[in-house]
């Protein structure tokens, strides 16, 4: 359960499973979005997920913190089922309160930032620790400043989101997620809504986070980042995992036609 940030070597050697998916299936009405996803993400591992739009990558990410409910299969985070409790051979839906408690341990960063526009940068970071985890205000503020400092926004505590650039907003969003001290971070195309010149500053923060031993699942179009930072690369298409493996190998020597076609267009 407990995980120390920063003890990279120790975390890398331990191979505790953080996320495990078995035949995960998801449909929206008649539309089959995920058709049997199998994968595991170990602790302190960075998994990058690439694929064309509509391939189900974002949906899978949203299933992990139960923003979407899966229709079939099993999904575990840190050894516990997502959204259900197994008792007497049957699955029982979790109450809203229990789902919320699980979500506290999973940070999520969105494509469109979704910062709270009526709060300052610091207010965004401090909100959940104070209101949800009941951390004393003073302590939360101190930690919030530290986190904003860490993502390079030490001079923007009192800025409202509308006064920040896209890259700065996304870095606040990362700090906001980290403020809950999650054991897993989900990134849903974190740089897709950014101007090209601002992508780098966000990737730098994520690279630093990966280095500190955070377990991360990153849906992205940044092939360079996937190659450099990722421990595993997953290529998804039409709800299937087409190919998965070491990023350098998959990128250099894709095995499937579909992967080759996709990579030829994005590389």
């Amino acid at each position: 359960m407990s995980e120390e940030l920063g003890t990279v070597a120790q975390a890398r050697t331990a191979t505790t499973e953080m996320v495990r998916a078995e035949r995960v299936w998801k449909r929206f009405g008649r539309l089959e979005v995920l058709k049997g996803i199998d994968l595991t993400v170990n602790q302190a591992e960075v998994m990058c997920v690439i694929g064309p739009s509509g391939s189900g990558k974002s949906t899978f990410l949203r299933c992990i913190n139960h923003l979407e409910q899966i229709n079939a299969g099993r999904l575990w985070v840190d050894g516990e089922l997502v959204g259900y409790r197994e008792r007497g051979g049957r699955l029982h839906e979790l109450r809203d309160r229990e789902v919320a408690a699980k979500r506290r341990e999973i940070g999520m960063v969105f494509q469109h930032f979704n910062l709270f526009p009526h709060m300052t940068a610091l207010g965004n970071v401090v909100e959940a620790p104070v209101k949800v985890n009941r951390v004393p205000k003073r302590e939360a503020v101190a930690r919030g400043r530290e986190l904003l400092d860490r993502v390079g926004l030490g001079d923007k505590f009192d800025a409202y989101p509308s006064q920040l650039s896209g890259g700065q907003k996304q870095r606040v969003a990362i700090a906001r997620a980290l403020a809950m001290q999650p054991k897993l971070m989900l990134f849903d195309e974190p740089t897709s809504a950014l101007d090209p010149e601002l992508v780098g500053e966000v990737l730098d923060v994520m690279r630093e986070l990966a280095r500190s031993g955070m377990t991360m699942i990153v849906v992205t179009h940044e092939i360079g980042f996937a190659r450099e930072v990722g421990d595993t690369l997953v290529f998804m298409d039409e709800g299937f995992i087409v190919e998965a493996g070491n990023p350098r190998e998959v990128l250099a020597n894709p095995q499937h036609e579909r992967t080759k076609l996709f990579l030829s267009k994005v590389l």
Partner: protein
Amino acid sequence: MSDTATGVSSTTRPPEEIESVPVRHPGRWIATVVILILVAMLVHSLLTNQNFGWGTVADTLFQGSILTGVVHTIELTVLCMVLGIIGGIILAVMRLSPNPILSWISWLYIWFFRGTPLLVQILFWGYIGALFKTVGLGIPFGPEFVTFQTQSLITVFFAAVLGLALNEAAYMAEIVRAGILSIDEGQTEAAQSLGMSGLLTMRRIVLPQAMRVIIPPTGNETISMLKNTSLVSVIAYLDLLYAAQLIYSRNYQTIPVLIAASIWYLFLTSLLTIGQYYIERHYSRGSARELPATPIQRLRALLSGGGTTPAADTATLGHGGGGGQ
């Protein structure tokens, strides 16, 4: 240094200013003359027509019973708006709830209270005693522990509050619902991903943002409420209008007394308009990069500096915005 051949010029001097003949607007002049004549006629009539009875207006304005009426009108407006807003928020959340029973009850409530005239509702509450002789607390269909005479429980004031507040809640519900729906779903998702409960998300994230959409129509509702309180005169509650009616039924100076009442209504609605301006400003935090100066701030700047021109304003604005980069 300038090199026009490449299309890049490094000189900073702009070319000659354009001096053109402006478009003439004869229509504006004609309209102005017509309006001025009409205004002069109105003022002349106000000053010379004895039937306006300005002396009586001035005497009535600060009469004891009128002032009592003003206080009652303010009390009724504030109380009914507060209850209406609380009721409206509850109804709006019920309406948007995934629970079909709650949603349906809310719909039914709004349908009923918006669908019948406010005056009828007020009369209804005024005469509720004819429908239910007694009101009691007890076991449904079983014995009652306490019983009240409806006539003594529902006073005229209570009936007025019920009539106005229950009706207002229906209108506020639709305003609040529109405000909640205007907030991007990403806000709720972000709050949920941080482990916030539905109630906390609503209270801390959605409603404060929805306020920007909710406030302007709520200001209108408050002004309407202030005027609609005059309807309770039909159940003989001593509001501003009823106080005026009592006076002119004695002195037969109907028009002057009604003018005096109208002056009070105008004064109170003006106060509300000013209040609305400041509340709107408060809730625009974070949406505007820099809040515009209030009229008082602008006046103060004008008096102290004297040099605060619109151009200087834009310069400070630009500076504030530039600091964000």
